[in-house]
């Protein structure tokens, strides 16, 4: 990771410009009321009620997922 203040979101590095997970998701149009989205921070699921008080720090990696067509 070249930028020391970067985080990795779904495999892509990006600058860390927000304080909390809820802020990051809000920037992508996702709120606690959005159905069908789940997030793991550093390999552990963060329940949606905890998004607002989950602080992000440089080097974190996030998986943001949702259901798609599957068999």
């Amino acid at each position, binding site marked *: 990771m070249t930028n020391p203040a970067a985080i990795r979101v779904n495999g892509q590095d990006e600058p860390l410009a927000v304080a909390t997970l809820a802020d990051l998701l809000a920037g*992508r149009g996702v709120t606690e009321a959005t159905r069908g*989205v789940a997030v793991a921070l550093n390999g552990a699921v963060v*329940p949606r009620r905890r998004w607002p008080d989950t602080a992000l720090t440089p080097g974190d990696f996030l998986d943001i997922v*949702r*259901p798609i*067509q*599957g*068999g």
Partner: protein
Amino acid sequence: MTTAFSQDDALTIAGRSFGSRLFLGTAGYPNQRVMLDALAASGTELATVAIRRISLDGYSESLVDVLAQASGGRIRLLPNTAGCLTAREAVLTAQLSREALDTPWIKLEVIGDRDLLYPDVEELLRATEELVNDGFVVLPYCNDDPVTCRKLADLGAAAVMPLGAYIGSGQGIRNPHAIETICARSPVPVVLDAGIGTASDAALAMELGCSAVLLNTAVSKARDPARMAAAMRDAVAAGRAAHQAGRMPVRAFAEPSSPQLGLIGG
């Protein structure tokens, strides 16, 4: 179909009752309209979905909402762990799916070979144990192997889902004797998963004693998916009825159907 029979023949898995014994995948349809038509024609009450990292840019209509709206809540979702190669990946995917879809149900796939999409039994058993202990309703996709199926049931799997043939191959049921043996010995429902190519394959699965059939490509890649979905619905019902009716014994030689008395010229 004789509804008088089917009504008292509901399938129960982990305390949930299903009127339809056909579970259907949602992948690979030409478009969403065709998928929804096929789901409706199939009569299914359980549809599989995958869980993926996905760009949220332009995130609009969610598949969850589309399916809920189209089916009036009749179709529940069964998330899968397709594409996972290790127990660790599969467990995290299951935990994410539980959070995303608010369901503890999981179709557990742990793949050991990307070309064959064959289960990795060691990882599958490990993931099953971990997820059962974490409160999941685990439906593992597994080999058509009676020992593996027994181990999965012993670990607390809610059903076992042996493959009929490779995923997406449409080869049908390659080892009917193994499937029949698994069905005869399994303490939990057996769902034939993968390999179904056409309606007769689905009927055979049910005749062999399977409790349900899970399929996707046979419908999504049919020339007319909705019509094939209806054919699968009828095949599953017919195969189930035949299994319950008890088939006649197979004989090596002819056995006349007509009476042998009063033959002309006899």
